[in-house]
């Protein structure tokens, strides 16, 4: 492994976040805080508990997941899209560095950022609601796994996109709806059985459910199925990344 090369890319990306800390950190924190105020405190106070957990506490894992997914994708996609767009990618492609090393640098930095954000939001949520984490190691495990998995997806999107529009379209048109319909704000057991079946086709359900289990010990879907699905996505997105590099797709003419 070429440690200096990986470190160069990783640090470069982390500095970029630091330089734009207002935008990269404050914006997601503010928007999630708004969710807590509106759904947690205002509406939540009139909602029944869900499976013995107060509604405000119930939505915490879902909201962290929402941030984790959208931030991982946007960090990673922007991280690789921008050098492609500005042309500075030439340097990375002409460097004595393997594809695996490039990916570790970019995906690693994007995942790190969203993990940091996820933890910040977790800390923020304690200001609004009372809750305890029953399985902290599982919680961290899901946090890291989800961040890495969706940073890979972001990386793939960043390479595929040839304009800012395409860069936005997947997070906006696909990921956000799936997260909202994936049990962030409700338990799928609240749905009529037909819609429960439909919902199970939504991959985000498994992520949110597993993550929520690590908080409160109960979930819509069996924890092992959740874990299996998450690993499945990871494998899928790694496979896509490997294919891109193998073929030089959109990176090298």
């Amino acid at each position, binding site marked *: 492994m*070429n440690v*200096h*090369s990986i*470190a*160069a*890319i990783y*640090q*470069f990306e982390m*500095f970029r976040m630091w*330089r734009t800390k207002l935008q990269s950190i404050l914006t997601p924190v503010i928007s999630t805080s708004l969710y807590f105020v509106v759904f947690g405190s205002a509406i939540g106070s009139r909602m029944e508990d869900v499976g013995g957990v107060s509604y405000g506490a119930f939505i915490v894992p879902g909201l962290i997941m929402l941030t984790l997914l959208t931030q991982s994708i946007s960090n990673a996609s922007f991280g690789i899209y921008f*050098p492609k767009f*500005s*042309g*500075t990618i*030439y*340097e*990375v*492609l*002409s*460097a*004595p*560095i*393997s594809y695996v090393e490039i990916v570790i640098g970019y995906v690693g930095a994007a995942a790190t950022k969203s993990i940091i954000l996820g933890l910040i939001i977790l800390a923020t949520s304690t200001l609004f609601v009372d809750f305890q984490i029953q399985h902290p190691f599982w919680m961290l495990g899901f946090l890291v796994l989800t961040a890495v998995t969706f940073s890979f997806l972001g990386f793939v999107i960043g390479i595929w996109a040839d304009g800012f529009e395409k860069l936005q379209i997947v997070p906006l048109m696909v990921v956000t709806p799936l997260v909202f319909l994936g049990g962030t704000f409700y338990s799928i057991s609240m749905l009529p059985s037909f819609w429960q079946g439909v919902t199970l086709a939504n991959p985000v359900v498994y992520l949110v459910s597993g993550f929520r289990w690590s908080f409160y010990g109960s979930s819509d879907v069996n924890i092992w199925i959740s874990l299996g699905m998450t690993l499945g996505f990871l494998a899928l997105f790694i496979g896509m990344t490997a294919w891109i590099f193998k073929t*030089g797709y959109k990176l*090298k*003419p």
Partner: protein
Amino acid sequence: MTDIISVQGLEKTYENGFSALKNIDLTIKQGEIFALLGPNGAGKTTLISTICGLVNPTKGTVKAGDFDIISQYKAARGLIGLVPQELTTDAFETVWATVSFSRGLFGKKPNKALIEQILKDLSLWDKRNNQLRQLSGGMKRRVMIAKALSHEPQILFLDEPTAGVDVELRRDMWALVRKLRDNGVTIILTTHYIEEAEEMADRIGVINGGEIILVDDKDALMKRLGRKTLTISLYKAIEDLPISLADYPLQLSDDGLTVSYEFDAQQEHNGISHIIANLQAEGIEFTDIQTQESSLEDIFVNLVHQKDDAA
């Protein structure tokens, strides 16, 4: 001299079916300055980009310092520094950060003293804490050179280093290239400025339409393909050239005082002695005779035309 780069049977066909490189064979010798000369669209950037790993070759092999650029890409690329044609920089990075980044990217341990030296050599030291967006185009070009030099390459590619650069910076650039060569760096530059190749290069390769038309030492190239002009200054003005010289494409100046004759320097029987003998026989006296080699520009125009005519 040993070969530091060897290109064999290299072809590149882009996805749209355009064939940008056709069966290129080329060797670059260690320690030389090699100029790849050709008009826009000739395939210079494609050739360089392929050697540097930015473009996938369709066919053929390339070796840099004995390492295959595909199967041993790490070793091969470690030898190479590239200054691309386009100015592409991270607007918000500082000069120091971007140059240090390049060194790290190429797998080298940080070396502040070296980066400082490079920035000083390129007159960038004062600007080290400036963001790149605050720099002029010429300065950015220097930064790109500094980035390429940051990892101490043995081979430096400069793709049109002086395109759109002012005269002063061009002189600086030429001086820098010579200094690097003196330090043992092999330099390959592309240009469509003939003066630049003429001024800088030890050897010149002429590329057109994706084909290398010829490669030769600059001096030999001038000699081998150069045309010469014979200029005869007359003692007294004449109105017309003597009929006895009608077989030769002579030109008489408007004032009637200079006769000039362009001939192929390669030709053995170039007719000079015949012309002079004839002038004397006609009683035309002259005060001076000189011959001049034609510029690379003429050579180049000729070559491209020859190739076009042959096709």
